[in-house]
């Protein structure tokens, strides 16, 4: 809570510094500069997104280039997601031809990425990725929903939810996964046989089959591939009044304690388990699978019985209490650090009646077994996401700090 006032100051700076980055639709060649002066901040916005249907969606722009060339494209409406790792862009939003990643036999590699509400299917391409003044070269990324790979293997569609392969189903032009991990799957996807969870497929013309994909060839969190400011990200957003607001502007800053604008300050470090989770004590229950996810649009926790909050009459996704109800959760990192997190949940049907608003700090719903601190958690906070194996002044990632 004490971090809010400095956050506002930084936001003003962020807006001023990053406007040329985000307003521009073309890129200009840059000469290498010392890391101490690398522009490491770009603006982010919470609005209804490119499909005009999102609430509590955090969006930014990403520039992708054909590796080693100045053939580049800047794409807006990209969802900023601390709950995943790796860049994914709708094939329909790409206008440049990024090279296809191939298996050892030359067959194209196509990915099926599992998310809690569905999956994305599309080929792995390679790009130079530019964010603010940072660049990651030769980054494996996903081109979601490519017509060249229109047939989704049954093993992929069996992984839950529905395909999120179009603007209408993704509600974004892409996802920028800046989460706790260097890659989007890790050792499991590098294994052979039945222990492989089936993210990566080799797709010759005869049909797709699951392959073992080495971590370095998996989708990479572009941040850890930067030359500097590569140990994590800092996200700052202003606080939101009850009842919500139309939109918000904040900042996405690369690096933790690498420059004068991204120090941990008074933030507490909460290390995670190997899966990226910490523990939350809430409504008398201790929940070990808790995470902070800017890509989720509410606080998602427990159920109606445990919270005393009825579901909305027209949707099982959100709570609809008769009036706003306050909760006090205790977060505990793997390192034993604890903090109290206070938040409130109001009636989603009532909130969402404000049709011109896209920002609601009191939106929440049920969750089977996890506590998902979604984007409303970020409002009025400075939140750090430190990447696994990367060194910071607060220790090695993976951790959250706020």
């Amino acid at each position: 809570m004490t971090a809010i006032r400095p956050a506002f100051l930084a936001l003003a700076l962020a807006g001023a510094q990053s406007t040329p980055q985000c307003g521009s639709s073309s890129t200009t060649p840059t000469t290498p500069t010392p890391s101490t002066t690398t522009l490491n901040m770009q603006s982010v916005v919470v609005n209804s997104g490119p499909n005009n249907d999102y609430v509590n969606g955090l969006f930014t722009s990403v520039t992708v280039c054909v590796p080693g060339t100045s053939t580049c494209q800047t794409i807006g409406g990209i969802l900023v997601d601390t709950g995943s790792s790796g860049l994914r862009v709708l094939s329909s939003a790409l206008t440049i031809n990024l090279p296809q990643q191939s298996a050892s036999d030359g067959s194209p590699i196509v990915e099926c990425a599992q998310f809690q509400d569905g999956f994305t299917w599309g080929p792995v391409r390679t790009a130079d990725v530019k964010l603010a003044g940072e660049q990651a070269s030769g980054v494996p990324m996903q081109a979601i929903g490519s017509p060249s790979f229109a047939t989704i293997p049954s093993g992929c569609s069996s992984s839950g939810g529905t395909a999120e392969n179009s603007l209408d189903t993704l509600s974004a032009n892409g996802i920028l996964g800046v989460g706790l991990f260097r890659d989007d799957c890790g050792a499991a996807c590098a294994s052979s046989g039945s222990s492989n969870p089936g993210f990566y497929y080799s797709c010759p013309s005869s049909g797709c089959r699951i392959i073992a994909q080495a971590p370095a060839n998996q989708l990479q969190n572009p941040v850890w591939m930067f030359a500097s400011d590569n140990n994590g990200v800092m996200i700052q957003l202003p606080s939101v009044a009850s009842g919500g607001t139309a939109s918000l502007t904040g900042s996405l800053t690369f690096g933790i304690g690498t420059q004068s604008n991204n120090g941990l300050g008074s933030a507490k470090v909460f290390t995670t388990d190997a899966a990226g989770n910490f523990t939350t004590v809430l409504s008398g229950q201790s929940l070990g699978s808790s995470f902070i996810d800017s890509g989720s649009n509410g606080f998602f926790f427990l159920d109606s019985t445990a919270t005393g909050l009825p579901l909305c009459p027209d949707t099982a996704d959100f709570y609809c209490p008769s009036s706003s109800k306050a909760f006090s959760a205790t977060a505990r990192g793997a390192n034993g650090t604890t903090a109290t997190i206070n938040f409130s949940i109001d009636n989603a049907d009532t909130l969402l009646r404000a049709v011109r608003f896209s920002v609601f700090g009191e939106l929440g719903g049920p969750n089977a077994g996890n506590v998902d601190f979604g984007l409303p958690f970020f409002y009025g906070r400075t939140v750090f996401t430190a990447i696994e194996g990367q060194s910071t002044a607060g220790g090695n990632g993976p951790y959250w700090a706020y």
Partner: protein
Amino acid sequence: MRGRVHRLTVAALVAFACFPRAASATLGGDASSIDADRVRMQGALLRISRTDTFTVHEIQSATGTAIRQYVSPSGTVFAVTWQGPWMPDLRQLLGAYFDRFQRAAAASRRSRRGHGPLNVDDGEIVVQVGGHARAFAGVAKVPRLVPAGVRADAIR
């Protein structure tokens, strides 16, 4: 009531026949399929526990995800839960209910207003999925098949 259960069992068996790479028994199917199926799924039976109102078969899938199948005294799988690093094969776990689940998931997308956990309730099947890569959890149940006296928080 018996007739309905029997039809569901037949539907589940048909689903098995269609998907030979079985991962586990199906929702609405009968308990006798669980054991034969475990052999095929290259998983390990962790334990079988019994209460007065149901039996739980807990299986560890080859990808490390724990799957619990809740079986009624009449031998019907009325709920399935999972927790672990990766999503289980829901087509297999939900059996005859899978297509219905996918339709309901697609229909609920508009009201979600973005991304987050999945909460599907179409009046016949209830499915919740939450988490992220490396840590997923979920529950699927058919309330109509849940034996009387089983509390909602007993299925997790």
